[in-house]
């Protein structure tokens, strides 16, 4: 809700009491969700410019040049609070919202991703949330006909009362068909279309900008309800409107509804708007004007149309049978005016409404320091059992239970589907792009800055391993209540980490979202999520390059490890699985070794030397190798006695999560050339062993069959869900 200070500020600027309608509008637009009032001040730390960036942060989608007259578009957003209350509709409308962001820029939507966080599945409520969130995403995305090409899933107790549902939409557009989110010309019409307006999602953003209380069930009315059929019709209609170049501006109805959509169009165009709320097509007849202004009903778009195009636009809307209303005009007075049957219900200066809030003071407290101590560390008594425990643990096991519910192939552009390091789509110019996302919330909890930068490195390695060159980042920053110094400290540190990474690796951030207030009061205590900065990175392949997968492809090939392995097990999956918790200083962010390893892999890929490749990440070398073998016909035989770095026991070598490492399968004949490249870039390398015809994972001291491993790996989620 609007604070006392904000209320005072509004009174002073207006010189009067705000009306009921105005108060509702200010409440929504000054919410954290719409205003970024706690976060925006730190965005200067990000690298946001780049040669390829056509449209950066600030509108519906970021746009990036991918050559031959095509732009890739991307948007990323959270739908956490609604999904906790109503997982099916919350997740479905999250997907719906992110698609709208991308198509409102004129893009065709060609791919979706989702990054999910839940409490452990042993608690039935968490299994219920996972089941229904996945069903919501699946039913919506599948119906609209956009393939899911990437995603991520992590479990921790901290998400018990605050699950996270972050979604990404990817699209493409030709530069001449880009539609901007601005209303530049007074006299142009405001035309809304797509769906009717109802009472669902009233002030959803205000609800998303508060922490949960015991009365959360009462908020069900704040969750929107999705309608993928209407969305598909909106997409088809929009395509016709854009091809005929009939729109001068476009904005989707998202958080904040009409107030936000029209307010932002006017703000961007330096104009004003006058809206007749009584002309809005309604779903429920008796809605109050104040409700119409802030309803977040789904599947609605707001277009700016020049008078000479109005008839043609109306004709196309009628032909496609989509509900629409000509609801107002762009004005030159700089005000947002809302009328109800001619009577003025609200008149607020755009400059006050959109970002005229008083900037709140936020206090950053220091994140508690961790130690280097590894006193907790013990070698496993039974290496084989330990590895099977790791493979079956919920943060490492097979995710196919989730992704087999998503249509990954619709539109026929999917080159690499789910279950690999990245999903790969082919664009109309023939270029292939890879998409991946990562966040290790345990690292981020222990050290938000290093953890965030290192999570970004994992995304980076996912792309590089396949042969792609990273070109842009989108992020979704999920944190606790910014009014608490501890939460705010985590947030600011994490932003610093992402800022460092984007500058160190020269990859621009072109889109994103901040979701704060992800904490709950449970029995009088504050329960806050792990800091969860989701980092999505896209990479592009050279023309004609075939993406390299991680499945082993030949017997008797050498397996090389690139990069040094240090005893970095604090914050690792090994620590979590063997001790039940994480503590200590997590693996460090080391941009220089990371870059060296990256250059090795990139050059070796250019020369076609690597047959399969994997990033070493969560779970270390052992898990990375198992993932290379599990979906292949082959096994491997290793000697772990000599590997570069200071990790000095078998378990440390197997499970250390030191960054900057890759595994590469190289055939005997290519070996000299490969080693030359490693030396040239000054990286470390060792030959870990060979691939074998027998489907057995032989680690020297112990071994297991792939069949045993597969059973445990594939059962990790299923045991709770079926």
């Amino acid at each position, binding site marked *: 809700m609007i604070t006392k200070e904000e209320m005072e500020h509004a009174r002073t600027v207006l010189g009067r009491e705000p009306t009921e309608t105005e108060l509702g509008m200010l409440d929504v637009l000054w919410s954290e969700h719409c205003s970024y009032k706690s976060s925006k001040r730190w965005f200067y730390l990000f690298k946001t410019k780049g040669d390829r960036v056509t449209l950066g942060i600030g509108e519906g989608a970021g746009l990036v040049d991918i050559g031959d007259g095509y732009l890739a578009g991307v948007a990323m957003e959270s739908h956490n609070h609604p999904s906790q209350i109503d997982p099916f509709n919350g997740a479905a409308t999250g997907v719906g919202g992110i698609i709208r962001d991308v198509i409102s820029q004129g893009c065709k939507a060609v791919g979706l991703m989702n990054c999910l966080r839940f409490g452990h599945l042993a608690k039935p409520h968490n299994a219920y949330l996972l089941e229904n969130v996945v069903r919501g995403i699946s039913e919506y995305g*599948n119906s609209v*006909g956009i393939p899911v090409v990437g995603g991520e899933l992590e479990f921790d107790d901290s998400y018990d009362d605050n699950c996270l549902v972050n979604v990404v939409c990817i699209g493409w557009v030709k530069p001449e068909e880009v539609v901007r989110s601005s209303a530049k010309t007074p006299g142009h019409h405001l035309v809304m279309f797509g769906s009717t307006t109802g009472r669902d999602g009233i002030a959803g953003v205000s609800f998303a900008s508060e922490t949960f209380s015991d009365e959360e069930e009462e908020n069900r009315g704040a969750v929107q309800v999705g309608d*993928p059929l209407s969305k*598909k019709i909106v997409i088809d209609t929009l395509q016709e409107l854009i091809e005929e170049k009939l729109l001068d501006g476009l904005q989707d109805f998202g958080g904040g509804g009409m107030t936000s959509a029209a307010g932002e169009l006017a703000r961007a165009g330096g104009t004003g708007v006058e809206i007749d709320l009584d002309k809005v097509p309604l779903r429920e007849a008796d809605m109050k004007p104040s409700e119409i202004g802030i309803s977040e009903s789904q599947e609605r778009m707001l277009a700016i149309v020049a008078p000479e195009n109005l008839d043609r636009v109306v004709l196309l809307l009628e032909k496609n049978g989509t509900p629409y209303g000509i609801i107002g005009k762009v004005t030159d007075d700089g005000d947002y005016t809302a009328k109800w049957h001619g009577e003025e219900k609200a008149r607020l200066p755009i400059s006050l409404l959109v970002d005229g809030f008083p900037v709140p003071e936020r206090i950053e407290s220091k994140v508690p320091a961790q130690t280097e101590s590894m006193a907790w560390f013990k070698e496993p008594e039974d290496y084989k059992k330990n590895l099977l425990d790791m493979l079956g643990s919920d943060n490492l096991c097979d995710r196919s239970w989730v992704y087999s519910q998503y*249509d990954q192939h619709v539109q026929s552009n999917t080159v690499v589907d789910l279950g690999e390091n990245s999903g790969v789509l082919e664009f109309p110019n023939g270029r292939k792009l890879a998409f991946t996302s990562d966040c290790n919330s345990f690292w981020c909890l222990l050290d938000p800055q290093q953890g965030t930068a290192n999570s970004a490195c994992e995304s980076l390695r996912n792309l590089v391993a396949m042969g792609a060159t990273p070109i842009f980042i989108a992020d979704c920053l999920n944190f606790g209540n910014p009014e608490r110094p501890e939460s705010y400290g985590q947030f600011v540190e994490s932003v610093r980490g992402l800022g460092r990474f984007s500058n160190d690796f020269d990859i621009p951030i072109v889109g994103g979202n901040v979701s704060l207030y992800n904490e709950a009061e449970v029995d009088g205590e504050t329960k806050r999520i792990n800091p969860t900065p989701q980092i999505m990175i896209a990479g592009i392949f050279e023309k004609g390059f075939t993406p390299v997968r991680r499945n082993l492809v030949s017997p008797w090939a050498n397996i090389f490890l690139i990069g040094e392995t240090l005893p970095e097990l604090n914050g690792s999956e090994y620590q979590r699985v063997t001790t039940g918790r994480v503590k200590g200083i997590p693996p460090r962010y080391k941009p220089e070794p990371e870059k060296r390893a990256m250059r090795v892999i990139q050059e070796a890929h250019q020369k076609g030397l690597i047959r399969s490749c994997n990033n070493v990440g969560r779970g270390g070398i052992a898990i990375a190798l198992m993932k290379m073998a599990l979906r292949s016909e082959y096994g491997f035989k290793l000697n772990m006695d000599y590997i570069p770095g200071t990790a000095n026991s078998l378990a440390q070598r197997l499970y250390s999560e030191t960054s900057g490492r890759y595994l590469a399968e190289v055939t005997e004949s290519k070996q000299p050339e490969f080693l030359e490249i490693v030396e040239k870039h000054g990286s470390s390398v060792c030959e870990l062993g060979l691939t074998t015809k027998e489907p057995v994972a032989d680690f020297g001291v112990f071994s297991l069959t792939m069949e045993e491993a597969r059973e445990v790996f594939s059962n990790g989620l299923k045991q709770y869900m079926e």
Partner: protein
Amino acid sequence: MTIAVLRFPGTNNENDVLRALSLIDGADPVLVPSRKGLAGLEEADAIVIPGGFSYGDYLRAGAVASVETITEGVRNLAEDGKPIIGICNGFQILTEMGLLPGVLLPNKSARFICKWIYLKVCDNTTMFTEGMEGRVIRVPIAHAEGNYYCSDDERESLKDELRIPFKYCNEAGDLDDAFNPNGSIDNIAGIINQKGNVLGMMPHPDRAYRPILGSSDGLAILENFVRAIK
């Protein structure tokens, strides 16, 4: 040879089908929105009903689309012996129309399933499988209601009249329950009508027409379909 590719509100595989057909010599695919009614099919020599979620599948999959006016035109072309394929939701619409026997129930898992599967092509020759007899092909599926079911009588006549061109199998062509993704009877993935000119199938040949997509096995089915247009 004009091929009408039907789009009902909520159909979403029309572009997959159009792109695949455009690679085949002699094919002239045209998108026909269902609101055009009978007029939309006047020029058509063949029809594809693509996959998707017609009318949101908010009732039973394919049920609303099956009573649209344009389906009368589909029926007429079927009677004239013109080639017709219904893929995924298109198969569901053809069974709802009664052009093909049986129904498509929710998957046994009660969940949507998207994955690559193998199909055993029948040994007898059909309009759509000429030259592929007995082969194992790889195509993806993506559906929530693909569990084919029909009465015992219908099942017998499908068998006796050799009207089951595709069954789910493994890479080696073994037909076993374990390789049946949705619980369909006799591992049925696709069937044809008595005349042999109407095919309904759950798997997507329209998503397996270029090697870069993981397989081009689906193209052969569509090529046969185009060749059959007279």
